[in-house]
């Protein structure tokens, strides 16, 4: 490929991979059978020039490839504050990646599409939450791929043979034990997001292993965990003992080695992590935002009965960010209509962090997503209240922040 036999785009992609392999500690490249491209995010001229250069050179993906969120909701951006120049350039970047033969999934939850990988599959995925989910929940194998390298892997079908592709690097390093965290808290729908936020901070650059879970949560809770752990930290693989396929026991998670260190987590730690996710003070509320990672049909199914027959307060916007596929599935299942009748808006293909869509008067948000709670203060200069899905709905109806903390305070 380096000599251009497979075209100029493959040559360029391979030249980058060959320079990156030694950086990643790899002495060779290996085949991968799927890719997820986070380079789709339009940030400015450089990301667009990179995409259009590859496309102009005739780039084609060599493996089934899904696309992460883009910088614009092609159909809905005019309802928001997106500058037209941004929308046009972000759309050009979308076209460039579509031209390479990738599947236009436009979602940060590719594991909830038809391109969900399988256990043990060697894949090259970008998007921090998707990486953490693929490794930790499915047991597929991906290194923590950055933007710009993910597409090089997709075009060549190759990746550095290193990191989490290799069994020996998937062993746990840090043991985190839940101590005295009762069942009602573990069942609370904020628990896994809060746990992820905390584990990401504690893990630093190590592979954490969490022991002491007594619940088998719905997949969307694990999605929330993956997004949180990969925002507050650099975690690409976290063994949840009893949930992660490679971690039926603590010993399996550590591949029978001893942990490098052990840390006990108590309710006090979890309470303070939960408090940290809230950066707003007071009960003012401009918008409820759900869907980072993208809202799934199951989440629409949970939301629908909570909003049925109600209407959001006229002063509080209610936005759900999701994918085209999930909106369609929700519509078919009859769970989209009550959400729309409630007064919610749906944004597709992108989110509030990746598209400059929020008008400046929106200063205070409420969300059940640790990822939104983590990044919105810096990226959007907003303050955020973190709460449960039910709290988000109740607050939107009442017009100000309402939170039921009882499960967290009494435990």
């Amino acid at each position: 490929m380096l000599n251009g036999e497979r075209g100029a785009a493959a040559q360029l992609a391979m030249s980058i991979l060959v320079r990156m392999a030694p950086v990643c500690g790899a002495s060779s490249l290996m085949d991968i059978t799927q890719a997820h491209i986070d380079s789709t995010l339009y940030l400015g001229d450089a990301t667009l020039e990179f995409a259009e250069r590859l496309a102009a050179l005739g780039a084609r993906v060599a493996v089934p490839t899904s696309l992460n969120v883009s910088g614009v909701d092609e159909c809905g951006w005019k309802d928001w504050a997106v500058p037209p120049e941004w929308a046009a350039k972000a759309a050009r970047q979308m076209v460039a990646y579509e031209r390479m033969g990738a599947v236009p999934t436009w979602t940060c939850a590719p594991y909830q599409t038809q391109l969900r990988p399988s256990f043990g599959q060697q894949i090259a995925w970008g998007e921090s939450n998707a990486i953490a989910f693929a490794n930790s929940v499915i047991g597929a194998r991906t290194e923590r791929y950055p933007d710009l390298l993910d597409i090089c892997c997709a075009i060549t079908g190759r990746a550095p043979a290193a990191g989490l592709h290799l069994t020996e690097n998937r062993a746990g390093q840090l043991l985190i034990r839940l101590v005295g965290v009762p069942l009602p808290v573990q069942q609370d729908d904020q628990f896994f997001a809060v746990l992820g936020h905390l584990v990401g901070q504690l893990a630093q650059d190590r592979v954490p292993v969490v022991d002491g879970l007594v619940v088998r949560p719905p997949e969307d809770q694990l999605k929330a965990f993956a997004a949180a752990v990969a925002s507050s930290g650099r975690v690409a693989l976290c063994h949840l003992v009893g949930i992660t396929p490679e971690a039926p026991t603590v010993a399996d998670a550590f591949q029978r080695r001893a942990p490098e260190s052990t840390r006990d987590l108590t309710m006090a730690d979890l309470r303070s992590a939960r408090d940290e996710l809230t950066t707003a003070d007071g009960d003012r509320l401009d918008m409820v935002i759900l869907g980072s990672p993208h809202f799934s049909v199951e989440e629409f199914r949970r939301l629908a009965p909570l909003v049925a027959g109600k209407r959001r307060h006229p002063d509080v916007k209610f936005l759900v960010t999701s994918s085209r596929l999930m909106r369609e599935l929700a519509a078919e299942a009859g769970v989209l209509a009550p959400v729309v009748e409630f007064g919610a808006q749906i944004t597709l293909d992108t989110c509030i962090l990746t598209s400059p869509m929020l008008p400046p008067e929106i200063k205070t948000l409420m969300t059940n997503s640790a990822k939104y709670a983590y990044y919105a203060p810096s990226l959007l200069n907003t303050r955020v209240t973190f709460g449960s899905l039910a709290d988000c709905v109740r607050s939107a109806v009442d017009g100000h922040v309402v939170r039921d903390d009882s499960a967290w305070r009494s435990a």
Partner: protein
Amino acid sequence: MAERVIAGRAIVPGEAEGEALVTSEALSFWGGYDFQTGTIIDTRHPLVGVRAAGRVLAVPFSKGSSTTTAVLLESVRAGTAPAAILTTGVDSFFALASIVADVMYGKSFPVVALEAEDFESLKTGMRIVVSPSGAIQLL
């Protein structure tokens, strides 16, 4: 203070000189760095509000978003990138940004990995010269 040289491992070799900006906290450039201004914007990071453009940024490693590389690439194009990045471990995100900047714009910045104790000896405000060999001269 006497001049001192520490040996680093050149992950992306190159030359740079600048004033050191040192932090022990990992940083995500996406949501953490404004490439229009070259300023750190992560409200949870101790260096929030500090301009890193043109300085030798010492940060142990990247965290968070996969988009850190793309933000750094934008900053190279905009002329707001750090002059060099010094890390503890090998950080592939920083290295990739520099390599792609070289491919796209013929401009890159050195990325050098240091031993933990050498990293800890760095102080904000030191004048630092980075050599292609990975040697770090502290003035």
